[in-house]
């Protein structure tokens, strides 16, 4: 999609705002031109004897003051357009990000994405707002030339020729600007992305004494950005100089050509003043137009960068009903329909390979039945997490089928959400805010049994310790909580929704044995819970109705522990490491 189409699509959605802007600005320019005409009449009438010039002076003042008031009209238009564009672009980008399989890396880091949510959105919205002005400016330029031609055709033609020549030169500079704009945005993103990474890992850097080295790299990235930015600014400087020069050089030529006409009396001093004032006005319009044309090309750059996050051009400009309210209604409880109840989940031939490394899972099939407890186990890098993520649609399956009660699941990422499923990843994310907000995550309070969720996650001893309980601020990324508290808050988030299927990736890695045992006990006390979890812990393996043993991305054995210990040598090796003192025999 070209920058032009992009802008046009937006304007189709906000035509009233654009028309208001254009009308206000058109009126503004007309009144300003009228003011200039009045001052010209003033000078022409001055040599006479009548008090007429004073009337022209008053008209001059009135026209200009009214023109100023028109500012407020187009301001309203611009502001309305601005609200729509900035919000829609941001929402469409975030939705695009959420449409991607959640565990696939984004094309950019979150820090880099910030540049797009901030700079690209605000710049493109700001530039987009110029276009109604540009349209009016074209009209105004034509009108001014036509008017000047009625006064002195030769001089009008001369100024038009000068200005047309300037435009041709500007076009060349525009080409360069687009190239540099792209590079500048790329370098800006490198800066914000890098800052995001080092600020996220500040403890790692500090304790490794790597801060000076990290800063040296930051300096280099900054310098790269500076170099490209200066190149871009030079182009802009030339563009502005030429746009302004168009007016001054045009004026200079007009003065030169007007000299003999003035001497011959074919051109009055008042008309001379009018040419000056109107050419000056024209110069400003030229400037505005040249910027708009240049920006139209740069717009393609912003648009491409934003579309990358939104998941395509169409997704970026997709129309949405936006409710511009600052008060937030909570989410209603997810509706639980009869077909949402899990009886049986079949996974057939599930395959996903990580691009680049080619590792992943191949042709994995298994079945979960209602109320069962299934443990996925295997060595490091055997594909345990990949299997869970592919099942949930957080990674896009290359092959295979998932059937919920025998019915094929078409879009797993959207399907495996509450009330059907919920998931706690290996390294859970906690967001800034209170413990309560983190558990609810937008869910209406009455839709969730908070106390039950907290209890199920064995979080209540911690909350009892916190002076503010559920209202405790967890800090940036939950840093104020211990690793175990983060894991259990994430688990409580899942329990607050009581889904049919609970998926846990290594929940117990930050828990001690006693806390873990308590968590499992409470989990199983919940009737009908179907659990799929990744674990290498003895407690989990012993309790499993079914163990799925993965090796190099393939399911090599499935069944209860006792059975696998007899049939699968790999299981025996794993068990020997997990429970050395009972190697070879289950401890039941």
């Amino acid at each position, binding site marked *: 999609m070209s920058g032009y189409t992009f802008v046009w699509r937006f304007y189709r959605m906000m035509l009233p705002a654009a028309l208001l802007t254009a009308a206000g600005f058109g009126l503004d320019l007309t009144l300003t031109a009228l003011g200039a005409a009045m001052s010209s009449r003033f000078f022409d009438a001055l040599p006479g004897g009548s008090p007429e010039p004073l009337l022209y*002076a008053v008209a001059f003042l009135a026209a200009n003051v009214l023109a100023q008031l028109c500012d407020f009209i187009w301001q309203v238009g611009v502001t309305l357009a601005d609200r729509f564009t900035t919000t829609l672009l941001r929402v469409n980008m975030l939705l695009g990000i959420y449409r991607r399989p959640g565990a696939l890396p984004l094309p950019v880091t979150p820090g880099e994405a910030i540049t797009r949510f901030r700079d690209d959105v605000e710049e493109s919205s700001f530039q987009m707002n110029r276009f109604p002005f540009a349209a009016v400016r074209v009209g105004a330029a034509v009108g001014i030339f036509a008017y000047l031609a009625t006064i002195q055709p030769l001089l009008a033609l001369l100024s038009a020729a000068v200005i047309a020549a300037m435009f041709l030169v500007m076009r060349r500079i525009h080409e360069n600007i687009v190239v540099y704009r792209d590079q500048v945005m790329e370098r800006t993103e490198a800066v914000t992305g890098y800052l995001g990474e080092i600020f996220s890992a500040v403890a790692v850097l500090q304790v490794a004494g790597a801060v000076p080295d990290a800063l040296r790299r930051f300096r280099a990235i900054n310098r790269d950005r500076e170099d490209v930015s200066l190149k871009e600014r030079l182009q802009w400087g030339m563009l502005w100089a030429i746009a302004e020069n168009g007016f001054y050089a045009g004026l200079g030529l007009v003065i030169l050509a007007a000299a003999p006409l*003035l001497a011959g009396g074919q051109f009055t001093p008042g008309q001379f003043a009018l040419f*000056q004032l109107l050419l000056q006005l024209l110069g400003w319009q030229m400037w505005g137009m040249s910027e708009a044309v240049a920006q139209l090309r740069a717009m393609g750059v912003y648009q491409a960068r934003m579309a990358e996050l939104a998941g395509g051009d169409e997704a970026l400009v997709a129309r949405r009903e936006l409710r511009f309210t600052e008060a937030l209604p909570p989410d209603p409880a997810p509706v639980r329909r009869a077909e949402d109840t899990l009886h049986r989940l079949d996974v057939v031939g599930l395959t996903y390979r990580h691009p*680049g490394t080619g590792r992943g899972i191949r042709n994995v099939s298994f079945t979960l039945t209602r109320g069962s407890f299934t443990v996925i186990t295997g060595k*490091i890098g055997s594909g345990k997490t990949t299997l869970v993520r592919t099942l949930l649609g957080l990674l896009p399956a290359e092959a295979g089928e998932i059937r919920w009660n025998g019915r094929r699941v078409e879009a797993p990422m959207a399907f495996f959400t509450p009330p059907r499923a919920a998931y706690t990843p290996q390294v859970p994310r906690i967001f800034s805010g209170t413990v309560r907000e983190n558990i609810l995550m937008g869910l209406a309070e009455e839709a969730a049994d908070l106390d039950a969720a907290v209890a199920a996650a064995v979080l209540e001893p911690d909350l009892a*310790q916190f002076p503010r309980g559920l209202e405790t601020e967890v800090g940036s990324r939950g840093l104020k909580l211990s*690793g*175990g508290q983060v894991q259990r808050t994430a688990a409580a988030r899942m329990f607050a929704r009581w889904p049919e299927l609970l998926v846990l990736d290594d929940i117990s890695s930050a828990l001690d044995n006693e806390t873990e045992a308590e968590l499992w006990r409470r989990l199983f006390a919940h009737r009908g819970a179907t659990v799929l979890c990744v674990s290498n812990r003895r407690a989990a393996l012993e309790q499993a109705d079914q163990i799925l043993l993965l090796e190099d991305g393939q399911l090599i054995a499935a069944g209860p522990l006792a059975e696998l210990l007899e049939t699968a040598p790999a299981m025996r090796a794993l068990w020997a490491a997990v429970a050395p003192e009972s190697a070879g025999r289950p401890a039941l």
Partner: protein
Amino acid sequence: MSKNRALRFVWTYLKPQSARILVLVSLLLGATGLRLLFPQLLRSLVDRALAGEPLPALLLPAGLFLAGSLLIQVLRIAATMLSERTAWAATNALRFDLARHVLSLDIAFHKTHTPGELIERVDGDVTTLAGFFSQFVAQVGTSLVLIAGVLIVLFAEGWLSGLVGLGSFVLSGAAVLSVSSLTVKAWAGIRASTTEMMSFVEEHIAGREEVKALGADPAVVRRLTALSTRHWRLRRRARFLESAASNVTVDAWMLGQFAMLVLAFFLYRGGALSLGTAMMLFFYVDLLNEPITTIREQMDELQRARAALGRLVSLTSVTPAIADGAGGALPHGPLSVTLDRVCFQYEAGRPVLRNVSFHLEPGQTLGILGRTGSGKSSLIRLLCRFYDPQAGSVRLGGVDIRHVPLDALRSRIGLITQEVGLFDGTLRENLALFNPDITDEQIWAAVAGLGLTEWFRRFDQGLDSRIGPAGGGLSAGEAQLLALVRLSLRDPGLIILDEFTARIDPVTEALLQTAVDRLLAGRTAVIIAHRLTTVERADQILVLEQGEVLEWGPRHQLAQDPHSHYSRLQRAGRTEALAR
């Protein structure tokens, strides 16, 4: 924020640029002088034409006008480049200093500030300052010179015309000043709301796996809409205020032009002026608009800059809660670890560690056991001096760590936690942590030393393989292996392993056992574990409960004592029974 402090802050970064600024000002003064000449040329043209002088006499002022206008453009381009260079040099120096400052701040600070917020402050706020750095001094200075020039010329033509010009300038100047103070607050609010929104976006992009799996995306999108709407409302207010300021100044200037027309009417009719002079006076007042507009725009820029500046100064004035050590030095080789009656709390009234004491000889390994929340992680944070204890002391190699410079202290400690911190870059950069002095040979030797050569073969492009911050297909456990290599590339005197094997599967852990043993040989180590197998290599065991030492002693001794907590835990670990 006091004004003086802000000015001193700005001056720190502009001072190195003062030569450039001087050249810039002279370029702009040249352009200003030319501008002042233009109305004079117009008068001479009109008067000569009306006096019926021959054509060559008319062409001279016209030609000068054309030449002058071209020269102005050259000066303008040069000035633009110079001011941009000034701005970039100053702001990049500022960005660097801020990043250094933020990286020097302690964990307590980073707990309350998201990376998204900090990015916004280190980059966003500084970018807001760029316009101010590049333009303000030069633009406002030359605008004032242009205004002074116009007023001098007008007074030279007669005190009446001078007064009209002066009145016009004073009126619009007063309008600029009165409105601009209103916009300061508006801009401060806008910066804060941008920061809030960006911090929200960063967190919820980084956490998209959870957001999706919990079906919370509609709620997040609604929240973003609300934040964006609020941001817009604040911007709208600032924009209308600026617009009102612009209106008032332009109207004041219009009034000046009107007054000049009326004055010209009476003077001309009284025979005191030529028509050319009347036009010249009008165009001089016309010339006033540009510098006044420039000053107004720069004042807006200043308000924006002040808001950002206030936030920057307050960021730089955050001092680490941890005061840097005065210069004590740690002994070479493995370090002994001594905690002497250490008490510690994050918040008053909620002690996390109570009277904790122990001593670890150089080269020994201590295993710390305890339930979640027993204070194990806090103890580690004290050892790395992310916090200072409220009472008692922490000594490494016999030296109180509060006396050792932080860099020196931390360069001797190797810490591995569950959070590995991977960067977008090559495997090499991630392992060497941007240290250019570490050679490939050193890295491969470290890998071989840990017995990971085989495992590293999975990286197709060797050390040039790209690793993303998300890990690029590496599991959390695999990222831990990288952290282990990272650590062995340095030569720490104390190694701290904070539950680092939590995500390594038992088979791999067994393979790693020998490698870790080799790494710990001759070094002091503190190991935190939930699992007993992890601490089986420890010489000493410390059991924590509710922030107090429950038990401390040599591991063999505790293992043999059937009444010790350690042996009780061992027995519990053996059954790990679960009631279903």
